[in-house]
């Protein structure tokens, strides 16, 4: 429970995910407060995307539970589950736009499906969402005609279509140039100020995490190694966390079959 007695917006208890016996997430306990921006960090392959998928209920945990507003999501009925989905926006790593329809229609889709609004209002709302991510001029393009960064921003516009109170981002800045990436961070900050939404952001971009995070967690090999504000996490002495934060080479064991790139036998064969 938070200080004022309200349950956290999002909480995991002993969350464990195994793929073929190997624990990708190992007893994760995190609490995300209402209205905060929570950043999940860690080296590649440590289970960030997997954690996100559990939080949004795309992947059922092997063990443990996920609670939204203090309720175990495993116990939600189909109606409640749909309501929760409508109040949740997910920004996928590569946008995950529907390729057969234009950008405008991608953003309009959830509005038309879930809201009973006159078409003119939907049209205006779509234009606002696209303007917000700087894609107003590209509204009539098809997803295949967009750059990677544009697709990512379009994914954000679609995720925000229904004014969600929970927003999840999978690597919003990866693959973007520093300026665009900074713009993405500003967008997250603006979003927080304007909507008061709770946001969970997966990233391995340290400057971005520092800028947007209220609190963050560092994962490594399926374990939550450090959690807290940026300064609290910076103060940890755990060598693995330090290695990641100080941008040392990633720890040698990042998963099965990881081999050093230099000096590997037959590396260039």
């Amino acid at each position, binding site marked *: 429970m938070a200080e004022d007695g309200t349950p956290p917006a999002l909480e995991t208890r002993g969350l464990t995910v195994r793929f073929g016996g190997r624990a990708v997430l190992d007893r994760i306990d995190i609490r995300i407060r209402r209205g905060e921006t929570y950043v999940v960090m860690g080296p590649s392959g440590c289970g960030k995307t997997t954690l996100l998928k559990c939080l949004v209920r795309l992947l059922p945990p092997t063990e443990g539970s996920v609670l939204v507003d203090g309720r175990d999501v495993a116990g939600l009925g189909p109606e409640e589950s749909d309501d929760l989905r409508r109040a949740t926006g997910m920004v996928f790593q590569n946008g995950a736009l529907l*390729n*057969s329809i234009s950008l405008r229609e991608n953003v309009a889709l959830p*509005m038309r499906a879930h*809201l*009973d*609004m*006159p078409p*003119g*209002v*939907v*049209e*205006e*709302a779509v*234009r*606002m*969402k696209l*303007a*917000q991510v700087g894609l*107003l001029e590209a509204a*009539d393009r*098809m*997803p*295949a005609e967009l750059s990677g960064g544009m697709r990512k921003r379009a994914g954000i516009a679609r995720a925000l279509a229904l*004014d969600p109170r929970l927003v999840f981002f999978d690597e919003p800045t990866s693959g973007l140039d520093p300026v665009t990436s900074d713009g993405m961070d500003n967008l997250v900050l*603006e*979003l927080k*100020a*304007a*909507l008061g939404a709770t946001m969970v952001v997966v990233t391995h971009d340290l400057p971005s995490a520092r800028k947007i995070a209220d609190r963050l967690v560092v994962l490594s090999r399926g374990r939550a190694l450090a959690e807290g504000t940026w300064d609290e996490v910076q103060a940890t002495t755990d060598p693995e966390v330090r290695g990641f934060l100080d941008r040392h080479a990633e720890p040698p064991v990042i998963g099965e079959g990881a081999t050093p790139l230099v000096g590997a036998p037959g590396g260039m064969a």
Partner: protein
Amino acid sequence: MNTPTEILVPLADPLAGPGAAAAARALGEALRGAPPGAPLAIDLGAVLRVDTFGLAALGEAVRRCRREGRPVRVLRAPAGAGRLAAFLRLDRVLATEPPPAAPPPPLLERAGEAVLAFRDYMVTLLSMTAEGYRHAFVDPLRGGAVRAEQFVRQLAETGMGAVPIVVLINFMIGLILAFQMAYALRDYGATLYVARFVGITVTREIGPLIAAILVAGRSGSAMAAEIGTMVVTEEVDALEMMALRPRRFLFSPRFAALAVTVPALCIFADLAGILGGAFVGVLSYGIPAPTYYSETVNALRVTDIGSGLVKSFFFANIVAVIGCLHGIRLRGGPDAVGRAATTAVVESIIGVILFDALYTVLVYFVF
């Protein structure tokens, strides 16, 4: 003339969710009843909560007023609305007009464009066929092991996999043909001619045609989808960067493989069709098996079988070129892959039958 009085529209709280839809209706109502030129004032004094759709309802009303040249102002907007409007770039959205739908070009122009596009398409098909012959037969195994491997894989995929269905379908068609022919000949007491009829129709026409159509459905679509997916996932670009010439690497093994497998399947088709006919002739019409056999052998000339095989070779070229072309020239995202596969099948079946008609007429009148 005195200025028309301002119309005041107060909006209720919340200007969000279903409230936004109600506001949009109220504003629409007010605008419909308003005398032209009368200014509109939207009063948000009672509003505490605004969401995107509430703002969109306001935005739509403002845009309509501007279009009609009607002055409009928003009164007593809550602070939250201002913040949200700034966040959603309301000013920018309202400053731009949605582009009008482009009018369709005149009919004549479109027809002209279609003709030109068709001509270009035919030229591409022919040049690709020429390319296929060159790669597959003139310089066959230059390029070495990789392409030989691809070729063998395609042989197995397009040939062996198709044998059961080709045999089954042609057996059934031989059966059907025999029954229909016997029916046509029943008054002449000439049921023995069933053997001759089935033998000639199957080897000259039905065998090659059905084999080609089945291969178009199985392999033509697979080629378009496979290569198309590779275009979408930039694999084709990757091949280009490895100096592997995607056209050659992907197209020529498939072209060469079909040129072998379709005639081979055609032989299976011929045998199965004749067997189907014999089944009916022997079991239903009491023709002794040796008689049926000798009738068939006597009726068939080498040119019948040869003409069918030659035809099936060209059918194979058509299916391979059209299938690969629709993959290679695919543009757009993954959704285009399904369309490419469908188009490839439809076009190669049309191509095969058109070619067949041309070939038959030519052979009939010229040779």
